[in-house]
C-alpha cells in the first residue's frame, strides 16, 4: 500500500511554479552523481566539473554568456508558440536557415566594407528563419498538418542543405578544399562588447529581446491573445481571437528569433559556416524554454543554467574524460525532473491516512 497520495490543490501553487525548476536542478545533480558513479566515472567529480567549475572560475563567465545567448533567443521564440499550444520543435532548422540566409548576404558582400552590412545580414537571418517556420505555419493553417512533425522534418532538410552549401557552391575557393565558407570580413563580424572580450554584440541583443518579449507578452493584446488561445481555445474563439493568426504569429516569431540566433552565431563565434555549425542548440532550447517556465526572464536564467552544462561538459571531458554526450544526458534529465516535479504545482503530496480522513469528513 502506498503511504503517500497526490491530492489536487484548489488552485495551482505559485510558490511551486518558482520552486520546481530549482528542485529539478538539485535532483539532476543528485541523480547525475549516482548515474555517472554507476557507469564507472567519478560521479561527484563529474557533477562538480559540469555544474560548479564553470561558475567558480570568473574567466569562464564570458564563455557562459556566449553559449547562453543563442539558447535564450531560440527558447524565447519557441516559448511564445508553446504558450499557445503551437509546438514548433524545429528551432534547430530555423536557426540554420537564418545562418544560411545571413551568410548568403555575407558572401555576396565579402569584398565590401560598411556599417550597413551587419544589419542587413541580421535582417536576412531573421527572414530566413521566418521563411523556414512559415512552411509549417502554412501547412497547419491551410491543411491542418501537425506543425510538430513538419517543423522537425524541416530541421533534417536544413542540416542537409547546409552541408550541401558548405561542401558545394559556398566552399571557400582559397580554403584548400575544406568544406567551409570564406571567413567573414571585419565588417561582417559581430564586434565585441569591449576590446578583446569574448562577449559579442549578440549577448546584449539576447537580453534586449528577452525584455521586449516580456513587454509584448505581458502588456499587449497580442501577448494576451497567445495566452488565451493556449489556455482556453474555446474561449479564445468565442472572444474573436483567430487561431490561424495565432499560429502564424507564433511560428513567425519563433522562426525569426531562431534565425537571428543563427546569424549571430555565424557572424560571432564561428565567423563562417562549417559542417560543425549545427550544434543542437535548437533542441536544447526546448529544455531552456520549459525550465524558464515559458517566461522571458525565466528563460534568461534557464539559458545560463544550460550554458553551464555545455561549458562544464567540456571541462569534464578534459578533466575526467567524461564523454561529450554526458552533457545531453544531463540536459534531458533536467527536463525529466522538471516535468516530474511540476506535478507539485497542481497537486500536493499527503499521507494516505490524512487523505482518507479528509475524504471521510
Amino acid at each position, binding site marked *: 500500500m502506498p503511504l503517500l497520495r497526490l491530492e*489536487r490543490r484548489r488552485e495551482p501553487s505559485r510558490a511551486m511554479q518558482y520552486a520546481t525548476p530549482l528542485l529539478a536542478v538539485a535532483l539532476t545533480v543528485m541523480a547525475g552523481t549516482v548515474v555517472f558513479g554507476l*557507469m564507472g566515472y567519478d560521479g561527484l567529480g563529474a557533477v562538480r566539473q559540469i555544474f560548479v567549475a564553470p561558475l567558480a572560475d570568473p574567466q569562464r563567465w564570458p564563455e557562459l554568456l556566449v553559449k547562453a545567448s543563442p539558447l535564450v533567443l531560440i527558447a524565447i521564440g519557441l516559448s511564445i508558440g508553446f504558450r499557445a499550444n503551437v*509546438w514548433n*520543435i524545429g528551432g534547430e532548422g530555423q536557426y540554420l536557415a537564418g545562418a544560411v540566409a545571413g551568410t548568403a548576404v555575407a558572401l555576396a558582400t565579402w569584398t565590401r566594407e560598411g556599417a550597413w552590412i551587419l544589419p542587413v545580414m541580421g535582417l536576412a537571418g531573421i527572414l530566413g528563419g521566418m521563411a523556414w517556420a512559415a*512552411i509549417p505555419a502554412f*501547412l497547419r493553417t491551410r*491543411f*491542418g*498538418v*501537425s506543425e*510538430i*512533425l*513538419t517543423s*522537425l*522534418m*524541416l530541421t*533534417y*532538410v536544413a542540416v*542537409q*542543405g547546409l*552541408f*550541401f552549401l558548405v*561542401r*558545394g557552391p559556398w566552399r571557400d575557393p582559397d580554403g584548400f578544399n575544406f568544406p567551409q565558407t570564406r571567413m567573414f570580413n571585419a565588417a561582417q563580424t559581430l564586434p565585441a562588447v569591449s576590446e578583446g572580450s569574448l562577449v559579442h554584440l549578440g549577448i546584449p541583443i539576447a537580453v534586449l529581446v528577452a525584455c521586449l518579449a516580456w513587454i509584448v507578452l505581458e502588456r499587449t493584446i497580442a501577448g494576451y491573445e497567445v495566452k488565451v488561445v493556449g489556455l482556453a481555445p474555446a474561449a479564445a474563439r468565442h472572444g474573436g481571437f483567430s487561431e490561424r493568426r495565432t499560429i502564424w504569429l507564433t511560428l513567425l516569431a519563433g522562426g525569426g528569433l531562431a534565425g537571428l540566433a543563427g546569424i549571430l552565431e555565424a557572424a560571432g563565434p564561428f565567423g563562417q559556416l562549417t559542417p560543425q555549425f549545427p550544434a543542437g542548440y535548437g*533542441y*536544447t532550447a*526546448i*529544455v531552456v524554454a*520549459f525550465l524558464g517556465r515559458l517566461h522571458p526572464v525565466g528563460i534568461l536564467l534557464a539559458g545560463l543554467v544550460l550554458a553551464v552544462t555545455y561549458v562544464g561538459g567540456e571541462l569534464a571531458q578534459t578533466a575526467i574524460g567524461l*564523454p561529450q*554526450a*554526458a*552533457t*545531453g*544526458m*544531463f*540536459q*534531458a*534529465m533536467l*527536463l*525529466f525532473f522538471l*516535468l*516530474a516535479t*511540476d*506535478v507539485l504545482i*497542481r497537486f500536493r503530496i499527503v499521507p494516505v491516512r490524512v487523505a482518507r480522513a479528509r475524504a471521510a469528513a
Partner: protein
Amino acid sequence: MTSALLVSFAMTLAMAATPILLASLGELVAEKAGVLNLGVEGMMLIGAVTGFAAATLTGSAYLGCLAAILGGLAASLVFAGLTLGLSSNQVATGLALTIFGVGASSLIGAPFVGKTVARIGPLFPAALAEHPLLRVVFGYDLLVYGALALAAAVGWFLKHTRPGLILRAVGESDTSAHSIGYSVLAVRTAAVAFGGGMAGLAGAYFSLELTPMWADRLTAGRGWIALALVVFASWRPGRLVAGAYLFGAVMTLELHAKAAGFGLLPPEILAMLPYLATIAVLTLISVRPGRVSAAAPACLGKSFSPA
C-alpha cells in the same frame, strides 16, 4: 543484369521499411489508447545501443534484439510514469525522451563507436536465401517477416479481440471506459510499453542488421518518420504496411542513386528526400478537410486523471 538490380532494389526496400514498420506499429497501439509518445526516436536509439551492446557481449544477435526490446520498454515506462502517473504534458515528455535517448545512446555507445557486430542474418537456408531470384522472397532475416506478421496481428487484435476493443475505447473516450470500470491508466501503460518494446526492436534493426555497426544517432530521424506514418495510415495497421514500404522505396531510391554516383543530384539533396516525402504525404493526406481529425483517436494526447 536488370533482374539482379530489381532483386537488390526490392530487398533493400523491404529492409529499409522494416524498422519504420516496427516502430510505427508500436506507436499506433499507443496512440490508439490515446497516448501520443513523441519519444520514438529516443526509444529507438536506446534499443539500438542496448541491442548492440548485448549482441557484442553475448555474440548472439537474437539476444541483442531481446535486450533492445527491454531497453525500449524501460525507456517507455519512464515516459508512462511521467505522463500517466504524474499527468505531465505528453508532447514535452516525449521530446525529453528523445533528447534523453540521443544523449544516453551516445554515452553508452562511446566504447563501441566503429565496432562491428554479427548480423541477424537470413532466416532461411543458404540454398533459398542466396538464390539469385528466390532471395527476393526468402532472403530476409526474421524481423522482415516478423514485422509483417505483427502488422497483421495488431490489426486483428485491435479489431477482433476484447482487449483490443477495450484499448480502443480507452483511446476514444477515457471517461466512459473509466466509468464502466476499466483502468484507463493500466491500459495506457501497457500500450505505451508495447510501443517502447517495438521502438527498441526497430532501433536494434539499425545497429544489428542495416548498419551493422555502432555510430552516433544512426537512426537518423527514422523514428519521426514512423510517427508521421501513423498519421499517414489514418491509424490503420494495413495502411501502415503500405506506407512503410512506400518510405522504404524512397530511401532505397536515395541509396541506389548515391551508389550509382547519380550525377544529377548531389548526395545531400538526395538525403533530404525521405523528410520532404514525409511532409508531402502528411500534406496530401490532410488535403481533404477533417479526414485526419476524424481518424485520430478522440483522446489522443490528453491527460486523464481518474480522481
